[in-house]
């Protein structure tokens, strides 16, 4: 598989993953572009892997986890005029509300919890696959997910959102399609 073929098939998922992981479109752009450059430079090796998509995704994850401190400044944005941007009016859709709400809650989680939740609930990965990606044990993954969901549930409850018991974690075993075959 050439790098171009890889991008054809995987870029869409990767950019969505980076967005979920970083919680910020600009940061997603930076971390994913950086991972893609590194992957492209090493494509003679990565391209021969059985699951290059999983490897590149792990590069995105590791880039996010290892460099998160340097991104902190990028989350603090300002406007040229110094005035606040317009706030969405009542016509804003419910889906946007949901997105903003969950986005805020995810952003407040520790990075590894956030990554574990995204890998589980967006990519439907098993515990061991997530553990490999986060370089931790399966038990730690279950802990991350459990704590993360608990925190989300509590905060949604506090804010009046109808989350309740909707986000109950459950251990997940590996399935054949789970690594790199999205």
């Amino acid at each position: 598989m050439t790098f171009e073929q890889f991008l054809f098939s995987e870029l869409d998922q990767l950019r969505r993953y980076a967005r979920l992981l970083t919680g910020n479109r600009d940061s997603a752009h930076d971390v994913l572009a950086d991972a893609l450059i590194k992957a492209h430079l090493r494509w003679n090796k990565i391209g021969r892997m059985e699951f290059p998509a999983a490897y590149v995704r792990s590069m995105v994850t590791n880039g996010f986890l290892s460099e998160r401190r340097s991104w902190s400044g990028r989350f603090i944005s300002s406007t040229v005029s110094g005035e606040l941007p317009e706030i969405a009016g009542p016509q804003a859709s419910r889906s946007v509300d949901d997105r903003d709400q969950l986005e805020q809650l995810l952003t407040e989680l520790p990075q590894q919890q956030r990554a574990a939740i995204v890998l589980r609930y967006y990519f439907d990965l098993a515990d061991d696959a997530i553990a490999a990606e986060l370089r931790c044990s399966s038990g730690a993954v279950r802990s991350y997910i459990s704590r993360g969901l608990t925190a989300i549930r509590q905060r949604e409850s506090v804010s009046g959102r109808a989350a309740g018991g909707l986000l109950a974690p459950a251990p997940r075993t590996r399935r054949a399609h789970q690594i790199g075959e999205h």
Partner: protein
Amino acid sequence: MNDQDLLLHRRLAAIAEDAPSGASLVRAEHAGYHRRLRRRRWYAAGSVGVVVLVVTGTTTLLGPGLFTTPHEASAPAVTATLGPRASASTTALAANSRLVPFAGVAVTSPVSVPASWVSYDHDGPDVQSGPSSLLVNWTGKEPTARQTIDVRSGTTGTGQYRGYLITVERPTLDVFAPGYDTKAVSTPITVSGHPAQLLTAPKGSFDNTYAAPVEARIAWQLGDGRWIQVWTVGESNTVLTAFASAITDKPTDFPANLSIGLTLKGYTVADSTLSSYVSQMTGPGLTLCAPTKAASAAPASSAAVVSAGDASSSAGSDNGNSYGNCLSMYANVADGGFGAGIVLGNESNAKFVADSVGVDVGGIPVRVNAEYQTAWTRWGKATIVVQSPGGVTLTTTDLAALAASVRLAPTLGVKDEPNPLVESSLAQESAAAATESQSTR
């Protein structure tokens, strides 16, 4: 997934809709990739498989005396040379132009490698230079068998390379092994009577800054204070030591196969790749950055590595802003490196071409997409691509003049392998040009 999982999945999917655009990502990737590629082109050559190094049955004896390691010689894959073409560096600039004349680039290495050690590379070395570094590598052959690679630990095939990297900084021990970061092990040795270090790391390890192969290196300090590290990937430490011993302090000049007649005011050379050929994803390139960044990042002692024709402009920056904040130009075969970015992004290739305009610069046809700040022109089978720095908006006239001022060596070889992306790009470009031609009648 149960209902609860699906609910969360849908909410995450809604967030993911706000992802950065594919086009911007591909453009950023392309700009950054080409910048770094010029430091280590051999990896790209392996990555896209377009460099057809036909391994012949011929063996070549490399190295003197006891170190006659048989190598499989790679037959020349160059199928043609570019041939001459007029450039337009003398074209009169508009009154509001932000461009100034530029004299070109020359690269000199402080050391020499005996030809007997690198004669297996018929295409000549890949040379990647910046103000604070010079990387020279001779490619042996492609990695061999496809291997199943574990996602985490990663096992890899190996190509065979001999080369060296000269840096102002002491060689790093921090390396990237497949799947994890680690440190190289340093062992003091003596090479040709001078103290040196044998640096070893796990198989397949890279230097993260230069992506140099760092499984085994020998490093020492040169007389001018800079550091050199040499490698012979896929060969024993005995051969590596012999290779290091064969390197002498005699300077070597490398000819520039790509130069430019114009640049942005104040921009100086930050990075150049000298290549003896163009292929679909590789070729010579040049990056020029704004002086403010260059001056702050480039050690003064590094100026000798790249000496721009404009003698006062030899400073530059290896550490310029990550993506697109430098003037970038490069040459490839046919798609020229822009095709993939266009095709793979949200913008279709057809739209990219349709949104471009044709400009005649002293008889040289150039196409310019002002929105993407990209201009391209052909030189034989090669496409020259110029991209303006991020945050700088050039006029169509300036972009066209820049592209037309790029000069390629007529002796530059061509490795032209058909590629669906390239063919698609060319076909759509031809169609758009035909449409434009009809509409102007």
